[in-house]
C-alpha cells in the first residue's frame, strides 16, 4: 500500500515501452513515449510527497507550515517542458513521413537495414 504510486510509475513505463515496441503507427508511438514520460513525472512527484501537507505556496499561510517538496515540483516542471518539446519534434517528423512517403507505419519505412 505504501509503494503504490511508485509501482504505478513502473507499470506506466512498462506499458509505454510495450506500446513503442509494437506500434504500427508513428503518432501512436510518440504518444506511447508520452506515457513513459508520465511514469517519470509520477515517480518524481511521488518521491516528494508528504501526507497532510499543502502545496509549497505561502500565500496566505505562515511560512514554515508543512509543505511538500518544492524541488521535486520544480524538477517535474522542467521535465515536462523538456519532454514535450522532444515530442513536438517527433510529431513533426511523423508529419513529414506521412506527407512524403504516404505512410505512418514504421514497418513500411525501412530503407536502413544492415
Amino acid at each position, binding site marked *: 500500500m505504501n509503494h503504490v504510486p511508485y509501482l504505478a510509475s513502473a507499470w506506466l*513505463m512498462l506499458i509505454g*515501452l510495450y506500446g*513503442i*515496441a*509494437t*506500434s504500427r503507427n*508513428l503518432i501512436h*508511438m510518440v504518444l506511447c*513515449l508520452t506515457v*513513459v*514520460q508520465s*511514469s*517519470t513525472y509520477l*515517480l*518524481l512527484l511521488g*518521491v516528494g510527497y508528504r501526507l497532510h501537507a499543502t502545496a509549497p505556496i505561502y500565500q496566505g499561510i505562515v511560512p514554515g507550515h508543512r509543505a511538500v517538496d518544492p*524541488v*521535486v515540483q520544480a*524538477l517535474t516542471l*522542467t*521535465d515536462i517542458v*523538456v*519532454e514535450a*518539446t*522532444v515530442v513536438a*519534434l*517527433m510529431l513533426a*517528423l511523423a508529419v*513529414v*513521413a506521412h506527407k*512524403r*512517403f504516404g505512410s505512418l507505419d*514504421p*514497418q513500411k*519505412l*525501412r*530503407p*536502413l*537495414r*544492415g
Partner: protein
Amino acid sequence: MSIAALAILVPILGAVVQSAIGAKLPQTIAWITTNTTAAATAVLCAILVHKSGHGLLVTWFGGWHPRSGGVAFGIDMAVDHFGSGMALLAASLVTAALFYSHRYIDAVSPHYHSLMLLFLAGMVGFCLTGDLFNLFVLFELLSVAAYAMTAYHVEEEGPLQGAINFAITNTLGGFMVLTGIGLLYGRTGALNMAQIGETLAGKAPDGLVVVAFVLIVCGFLVKAAAVPFHLWLADAHAVAPVPLCVLFSGVMVQIGLYAIARVYWTVFSGMPELHAHALVQILMGIGGITALFGAVMCWLQRHLKRLLAFSTISHTGLFLMGIGLLEGHGLAAAGLFIVCHGLVKGGLFMGAGIVGKRVGTVDTGDAFGKGREIWPTGILFAIGALLLASVPPFGPFAGKALIEEAGQHGGFWWAPYACLVASALTAGAILRATGQIFLGWGQAPQEEDEQERGQEEQGSEEEPESDSLFETTPWMMWAPAWFLVLLGAAIPLIGGWHQWFERAANRMTDRATYAGHVLHGAPLTFPPPHISGPHTSSYVFAIFSVLGAVAVALVGMYLKPGKVLDQIADGMHAIHSGHVGDYVVYLVAGIAIIGGLTGLAVT
C-alpha cells in the same frame, strides 16, 4: 568572472543571435560569426584546462554556495582536467566541422548554425557540470539538437527514419537516467553529485542503489552506443550530413562514456561493495562484446559512413574496457584514447565526405575504382586506418597500449587479444575500402541479393548532399581533415602527455577530496600518480595489429566468403533491421540482463 559560465553562455548567446538575425545576413557572414563563436568557446575551454591544473574549479551559479552540513543549494560547475579536456575536444571538433560545412553543405538553412552552437553549448555544459539533474537536462539539450540536425536532408526517406530511430532510442535512454535520478533523490534527498556521493558513502548498496546505478549507466550507454544499445548509431551516421557525423563519432558518443565515469566516481564510488570485482567483470564484458561485435559488423559493411560508424562502436567497446576497470590507470588510458580516436575519426569522416562530393557516392561498390583522381584523400584514409590499427608510437597506439596493460594488470588476460582483433578488423575494413575506392584493387563488392538486403544498406540510394559533383576538392574541406588526423597522431608526441592524463584520472577518481572541496571548500590534496610507460608487450601487440589489419584488408579485397560466413553475416544484418520497435526490445533486454547480472554481482 567565471570562465566556466562564460564557456556555456558564449555559444548560447551566439545561437540566439544567429537565429534572430541569421536569416538576414549573407551566408558567409553568418558562417564567419558562427565559426568565431565556436572558436571562442574552444579558447575558453582551453583556458579552463589550464586553470584546472591545480585540481578543481568550482563555480556556483547564482552565487548559491552550499549551506552548513554540506547541503548544496544551487547548481555548480566542478571543472577538472577530464571535464575541461572533453569540453575542449567538443569545441575544437565543432569548430572544425563548421569550417568544413561551409563548402560541404549547399544550401545552409539559417537554423543549421544555431543548432550547431546549441549542440556545442549542450556538450560543453555536460562536461563541466556537477549537478546530476543538470546533467540530464544538458543531455536532452544536446540530444534534441542532434535529432533535429540528423533530419537535415528530411526530403529523403533515410534521414527521416534515421532521425526517428535516433530520437526514440536516445530519449528512452534519457528516461532511464531520469528514473535513476528520481530513485537516488528519493534515497538521498540531494541532486548535487558530490552531495549524493557523500550521503551514500560507506553504506551497503541495496536494491534501490543497484537499480539506480544500472539505469543511469545503461541510459548513458545508449548514448555511448554499446551493444545492445548501439543500433541507432549506424542508422544516424548513414544519413546525417558529414559534419554531424564528425561530431557524433568524435565526441558525442564519448560524452556518454564520460558521464558514466563521472557519475560512477563522484556518486557511487564511496560504496565498497559496488566496487566488486564482479561489477568490473560485467563492465569489461560489455566492453569486450561491443568491441568484437562492432568490429565484425564494421567488416560486413559496404557503405563507407556505416563502416566508420561501426568502427566507432567497436572503439566504444575498447574505451568501456578502460573505464570499466574502475581504477585510475584504465581511466587515463581511456581518456587519451578517446581524444586521439576522436580527432582521427573526425578526419576520416571528413575524408568520406570528400569522396561523396567528388565521386558522388559513399558506397564502396558504386565508387569502386573511381577514387583514383582523389588519391590524396586515399592517403588520408590509409594513414587514418593505420593510426587506428595502432601504429606505434602515434596517438591511438598509446591509448590502446595503456588500456591493454591496465586490463592485464586487473587480471583480464584476454584484454590485449580482444583489442588486437577489434583494431585489426576495423582498420582492415577501412583499408579494404581504401583499396577498393582509390586503387580499384580486388573484386568489386558483389551486387547482393536484392530482395534480401534491399539496396539501402549499399548506400546506392543515397543521393549525394548536392546535385553537382565538385571538380576539385576545396581546401576548406581537405585542410581540416588532414589537420585532425595529424593532430590525433601527434598528441602522444607532446611532452608530458602521460603525466597529464594520469593526473587527470587521479583527480577524477578521488571522490572524497572532490566532495570535500565542492561542499565544504576543503583544500585540495591529491596523492601523486604512479606513472609507467607502455611496455614492450604493447609494442608487440601493436605490430601484430597493424599486420593483421593489412592482412584483413587483402583478404577482404581478394577472397570471397564461404557459405557459413554468409549465413552468419545475414543473421547479423537481420538484427540491424532498421525498425525502431526491434531496437526498443533489444534496449530493454539489455537493461534487464545487465541489471540482473549486476544485482547478482553486488548482493
